[in-house]
């Protein structure tokens, strides 16, 4: 059965979300969040995410940058309440529109997932159940949140597949294995945007994809984000993607946020030694090729247990670094947690 | 021979390197070691001649002379069970060793070299897999006549193929991995790749499979003996003892309970160890 889709109809959501009311508040507020793994005896074992803070406003794209083990994906999982059973949020608050998410029951959390916060996974093959057609999975998701007839659901799904620039009718009746990585990730994007959520969490959405496909998918994400004014939390280890597209950035190392602020500020004027080194250490296309790349000594797994997490690898570390540095503002829209930054404060202010 | 030697040494090392055994597996290990010890020194332990019939004292209840009582021919049940473990365990060890020594090399060659050898082995496997192990054993025992030797032949014939399949499967997936490619690029000969790189990968799955199979083999042997197709009377094999006692079962259930318990405990201890090994070595697929 084919359904003719009337594209002249406006694509309004069934619910009118009371956006104007929330405008003044930040959309998402994370305060002092810590995540620990639970050992065999259910006691707190290792702190994997340590007292992090950040906020996202409606329509903002925030990038979280960090290497493996920095805790960026865990933070994202905690947002939607999908932490593995062996991990637990031990302190802190996650507030969406001022509503505390950590206190919600599993049922309330389920209603919220997909509908208010959508999640896009890194592993595009894992986004859809392999033996169910894409269309049916999207309809299933729609009907989990809305009382809607199958036919209407199908119409809506087709519209959204069209919106993410896929051949809608064909994709609708395809099994996941019949689509390419890029197509699957577009379909996942459709699944995420269908409810016009307040926030999309994109966890390394293009890491497994080719260079050109990644660019296209991220461009599409930005385009749709602008159109529907939702917030995006883009998690990536690819600095290039994050620098190109986000409004602001949080840099994580060893479970801590070491620096955050507006993307432009951080690109022009990184203050934390880790941020600086990250920006310099990767090969960058340019007309002048350096003879040698700047190197960050050591491995990402090297995390100091006390004080600044980066201290063991930091070329500038000194005695004070064994005490945890406080997050302090540098300029109007940049915060950094580094003792060395104090020393350089005068210099940075002068240069910016 | 080098191959056999390497395999057993490496298996031994794999087991020795394991730490933190789960308590259930330890229990199984202790049980099995006890049983093996009893089997080894069995002739010194037994109070009576297991073959000596004494019709005057047939079907007597447990006493000091006959700890588990006597059977329908007045033979000491306890002595027969102790001596019977030699038959059961001996046959099982012999069978499983033969099966491993046949199954692994064929699996390695068939998986790594492939080609015609592989397709012949696999067609044969397809044919054999259609026949349930137990039915095939029955068929062979049926055609060749009921005896312990034929029983062993049939179990070997039935079992080797599953080892070949497991080994071949592992080899097929491992040989595409980068470390094997790296070994090829580094100039390793086929023989060296098989012995040095592939053999260690198959040790833990084979070890798990074999421990779990020991239990299954004991069950097959005792079931066939119970049907009268294995050990023949008056041999004190546990399954055969059960078969012997069947007519007196209503009045004298001890005849059945003790040999059955013996089988159950041996198989249970093997399964406990096998499960422990499987969890420890992470071979979830078996």
């Amino acid at each position: 059965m084919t359904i003719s889709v009337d594209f002249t109809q406006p694509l309004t959501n069934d619910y009118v979300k009371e956006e104007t009311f929330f405008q003044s508040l930040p959309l998402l507020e994370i305060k002092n969040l810590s995540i620990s793994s639970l050992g065999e005896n259910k006691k707190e074992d290792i702190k994997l995410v340590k007292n992090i803070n950040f906020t996202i406003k409606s329509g903002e794209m925030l990038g979280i940058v960090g290497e493996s083990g920095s805790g960026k994906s865990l933070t994202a999982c905690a947002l939607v309440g999908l932490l593995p059973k062996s991990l637990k949020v031990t302190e802190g608050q996650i507030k969406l529109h001022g509503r505390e998410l950590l206190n919600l029951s599993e049922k309330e959390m389920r209603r919220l997932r997909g509908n208010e916060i959508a999640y896009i996974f890194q592993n595009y093959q894992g986004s859809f159940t392999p033996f169910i057609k894409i269309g049916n999975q999207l309809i299933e998701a729609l009907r989990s949140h809305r009382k809607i007839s199958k036919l209407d659901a199908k119409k809506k799904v087709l519209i959204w597949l069209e919106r993410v620039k896929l051949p809608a009718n064909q994709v609708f009746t395809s099994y996941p294995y019949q689509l390419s990585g890029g197509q699957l990730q577009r379909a996942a994007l459709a699944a995420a945007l269908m409810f016009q959520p307040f926030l999309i969490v994109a966890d390394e959405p293009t890491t497994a994809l080719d260079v050109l496909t990644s660019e296209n998918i991220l461009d599409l994400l930005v385009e749709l984000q602008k159109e529907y004014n939702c917030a995006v939390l883009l998690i990536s280890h690819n600095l290039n993607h994050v620098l190109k597209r986000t409004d602001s950035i949080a840099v994580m190392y060893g479970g801590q946020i070491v620096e955050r602020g507006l993307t432009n500020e951080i690109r022009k004027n990184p203050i934390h030694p880790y941020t600086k080194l990250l920006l310099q250490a990767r090969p960058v296309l340019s007309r002048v090729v350096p003879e040698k790349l700047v190197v960050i000594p050591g491995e990402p797994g090297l995390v100091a247990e006390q004080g600044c997490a980066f201290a063991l690898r930091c070329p500038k570390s000194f005695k004070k670094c064994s005490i945890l540095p406080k997050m302090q503002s540098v300029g109007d829209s940049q915060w950094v947690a580094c003792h060395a930054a104090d020393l350089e404060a005068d210099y940075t202010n002068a240069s910016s | 021979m080098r191959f056999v030697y390497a395999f057993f040494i490496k298996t031994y090392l794999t087991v020795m390197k394991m730490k933190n055994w789960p308590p259930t597996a330890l229990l199984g290990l202790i049980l099995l070691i006890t049983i093996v010890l009893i089997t080894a020194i069995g002739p010194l332990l037994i109070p009576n001649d297991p073959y000596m019939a004494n019709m005057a004292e047939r079907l007597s209840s447990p006493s000091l002379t006959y700890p588990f009582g006597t059977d329908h021919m007045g033979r000491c049940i306890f002595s027969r069970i102790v001596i019977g473990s030699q038959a059961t365990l001996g046959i099982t060890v012999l069978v499983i060793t033969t099966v491993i020594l046949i199954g692994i090399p064929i699996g390695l060659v068939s998986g790594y070299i492939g080609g015609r050898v592989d397709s012949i082995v696999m067609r044969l496997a397809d044919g054999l897999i259609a026949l349930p192990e137990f039915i095939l054993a029955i068929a062979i025992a049926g055609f060749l006549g009921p005896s312990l030797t034929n029983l062993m032949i049939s179990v070997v014939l039935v079992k080797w193929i599953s080892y070949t399949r497991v080994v071949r499967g592992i080899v097929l997936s491992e040989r595409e991995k980068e470390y094997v490619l790296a070994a090829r690029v580094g100039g390793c000969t086929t023989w060296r790749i098989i012995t040095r790189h592939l053999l260690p990968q198959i040790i833990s799955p084979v070890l798990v499979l074999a421990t779990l199979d020991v239990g299954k083999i004991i069950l097959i042997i005792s079931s066939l003996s119970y049907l009268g197709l294995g050990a023949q009377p008056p041999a004190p094999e546990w399954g055969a003892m059960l078969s012997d006692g069947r007519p007196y079962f209503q009045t004298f259930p001890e005849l059945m309970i003790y040999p059955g318990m013996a089988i159950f405990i041996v198989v249970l201890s093997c399964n406990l160890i096998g499960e422990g090994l499987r969890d420890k070595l992470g071979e979830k697929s078996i």
Partner: protein
Amino acid sequence: MLQVEKVSKSYRSTSVLTEVTFQMEQGESLGLIGESGSGKSTMAKLIVGLEHLDGGQITLNGLDFQQLRGAELRKARRHVQVVFQDPWASLNPKLPVWKSIIEPLENYPDVVPSFLKGVRNDKRKMAEILLEKVGLDRDFLERYPHQLSGGQRQRVGIARGIGLQPNLLICDEPTSSLDVSIQAQILNLLKELKKEFNMSYLFISHDMASVQYMCDRIAVFKQGVLVDLFLSKDLFSDTRHPYTKMLVQATVER
């Protein structure tokens, strides 16, 4: 040194490489760039003889690998070694590091690289020297792969690759599965080693920036066809193939 002429390869009627031709000189490094499925990794496997050609010819130092068999092929193969993409899969998990490193040297007992003169019979000493070359100390000799981090494993893989002092080292996406801060370490290491041993590199990657950093010349593959081959310094030239321009556009920062 390496001549690739009109090489074609297909798997089950899908063509992976179509009439690819290029040459490499001793000491030169050539980058192969392309998206997944463009045939660049197949090219590497063909050069070391892990796969068979469907058509064309590959010669290394004048020897045609496809014509050689058995012992002769093994003998010829020692001039080309590979550093693999996935440091987690490229080391045998059951062997300690030093055994993995010296395995090629064990297989070719008559090869004596300049930096191993005098210790050729001492396996541990050789492993130690090789580890030192890749910036790891002797503490790593007895470790097993699972006790190493990704970057350390890749260093071990490189140590194994340079052990025979090959003419050509093929690096198949050596940094693509590593963290950002490790990538620079590995790229620098490879660049230093190249200078030290005057090796040629065939550097396979999907990241234009790494290739530009590492290579003298760049070959762009698209769906099994070599669409563009140029000197690295001409990367931004207007005469580049449109596909190359797209890749550059995607990689460059705004």
